[in-house]
């Protein structure tokens, strides 16, 4: 295939323990480390491997968000993507509108595969890939742990509650990644230098003429109920006693 489109979302880093602001107006993101959504990194790694096997010619990374998202796109270019597109938006973009943005790009670029993370670890929505497949009228292979390409079709193994499900899909299609699809590569310094010269197009979201979906109103935020620290027992006998007291053994 000619092209693979990969979505990269900028999110609060995986290792940051986020906190709800004391006034309940949101989650504290000021001064917090931002990174590529880990599932998206896996999507990019998979696209790069497909290209390195000679099964695709170009990997394009796409993000939607404010100007700062260029950092994550540059990281994607340093990992090995050929070019980047930033759909610039100062506002948060809901999943359906994101899917509509991707559909516009799909029509421009005509990729064989759109590879996305199965969910972003900020809003944990798990929607955009399935929505894109729906409005594009194409197959979706979500939660992929293995992808094999064979000409105009792909065989994808999916991590499902019951085990591992394998499906066959015609291309073009949307594939969303699960954790065990691959282990993303580390970026090396020379690659960061090279990435600075790779093309990064910035398109204001309004220019795409996308019908903006009605977003949900986030009324308030609160911290989760905390479990209370319990008791420490000294030995197995005490543990068994405690469980028997609760009627659990």
């Amino acid at each position, binding site marked *: 295939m000619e092209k693979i489109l990969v979505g990269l979302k900028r999110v609060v880093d995986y290792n940051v323990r986020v906190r709800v602001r004391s006034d309940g107006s949101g989650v504290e993101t000021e001064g917090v480390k931002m990174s590529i959504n880990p599932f998206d990194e896996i999507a990019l790694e998979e696209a790069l491997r497909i290209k390195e096997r000679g099964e695709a010619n170009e990997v394009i990374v796409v993000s939607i968000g404010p100007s700062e998202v260029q950092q994550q796109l540059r990281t994607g270019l340093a990992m090995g993507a050929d070019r980047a597109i930033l759909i610039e938006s100062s506002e948060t973009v809901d999943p359906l509108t994101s899917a509509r943005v991707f559909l516009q790009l799909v029509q421009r670029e005509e990729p064989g595969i759109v590879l996305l993370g199965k969910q972003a670890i900020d809003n944990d929505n798990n929607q955009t890939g399935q929505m894109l497949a729906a409005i594009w009228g194409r197959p*979706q292979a979500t939660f992929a742990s293995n992808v094999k390409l064979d000409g105009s079709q792909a065989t994808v193994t999916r*991590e499902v509650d019951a085990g591992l499900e394998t499906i066959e899909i015609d291309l073009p299609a949307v594939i969303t990644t699960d954790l065990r699809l691959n282990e993303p590569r580390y970026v090396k310094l020379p690659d960061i230098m090279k990435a600075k010269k790779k093309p990064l197009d910035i398109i204001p979201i309004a220019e795409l003429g996308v019908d903006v979906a009605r977003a949900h109103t986030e009324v308030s935020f609160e911290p989760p109920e905390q479990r209370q620290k319990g008791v420490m027992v000294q030995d197995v006998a005490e543990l068994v006693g405690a469980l028997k007291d609760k009627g659990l053994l």
Partner: protein
Amino acid sequence: MSKILIIAEHDGTTLNASTAKCVACAADLPNAEIDLLILTASADAIADQAALLDSVTRVVVTENSANAHSLAAIIAPQIVAHADGYSHVFGPSTTFGKDLMPRIAALLGVNQVSDIMEVLGSHTFKRPIYAGNAIVTVEVPPDLPVVATVRTASYRSVASTNNAPVERLTNNVETPQHTRFVDLKAGSSDRPDLQSASKVVSGGRALGSAEKFEIIFSLADKIGAAVGASRAAVDAGYVANELQVGQTGKIIAPDLYIAIGISGAIQHLTGIKDAGTIVAINKDADAPIFEVADIGLVGDLFAIIPELQAAIEG
């Protein structure tokens, strides 16, 4: 009035326990009238089970050989064809529902409410974000259909004492040929199901190998528990992916959860915070798992587990 269509999850013969939890969530909506939709190749056994669920007004069945494997791309357009007149379309937040429901939402032109954990009104819900580190209250547009997944760990199944009428519906939706089922490699089924078990024993990286992980299975069998695992244990190949508990694995709420050799990363804790009693066994007294455990025991798991098994027998 809220008129809710719930998409039943099943494996072709048995209704998944997640469906009865979706019904419980839907029943929290004001003036709920709940229809259950089953798309399948052959519905008889599933429809019988569905009709028993309390709070269900009507069971609607659409049989089509193309529906045999519940592929999202094939069943979503049929669900949309049946969704007319419903204010809400709900499915479980299992891999089945996570795969399917956004496809329905997009075809209906709406965003989805993912992982409802509490219903505050017909169009106001609480849901977790940031791996459960924050809970957001969302309001959805009242003039659009509400498509949502239900965080099943937040709900208890409705009882099965009902006798709802079953109706068969046909549709003339042309199902796409571009997505084909190949196979499903399911884990062993002679143990309780992780998602719905009342007791779960989980192991982490500290088990060290697939062979040594056997000790977890052995303890689980002794007390009739399901087996779970941390992401680290699954990544290391000790056990299969479907045993993973946490943000990106299964979110569970057993009465008893025993975490063995699991340090307790936030992504794991989000999968167990609704458990009744959490027991932690770990050699590191500073492991974060002890911050949430109801009962903690510091020590070497390979010494403790055999002792525990002996004590349970005795």
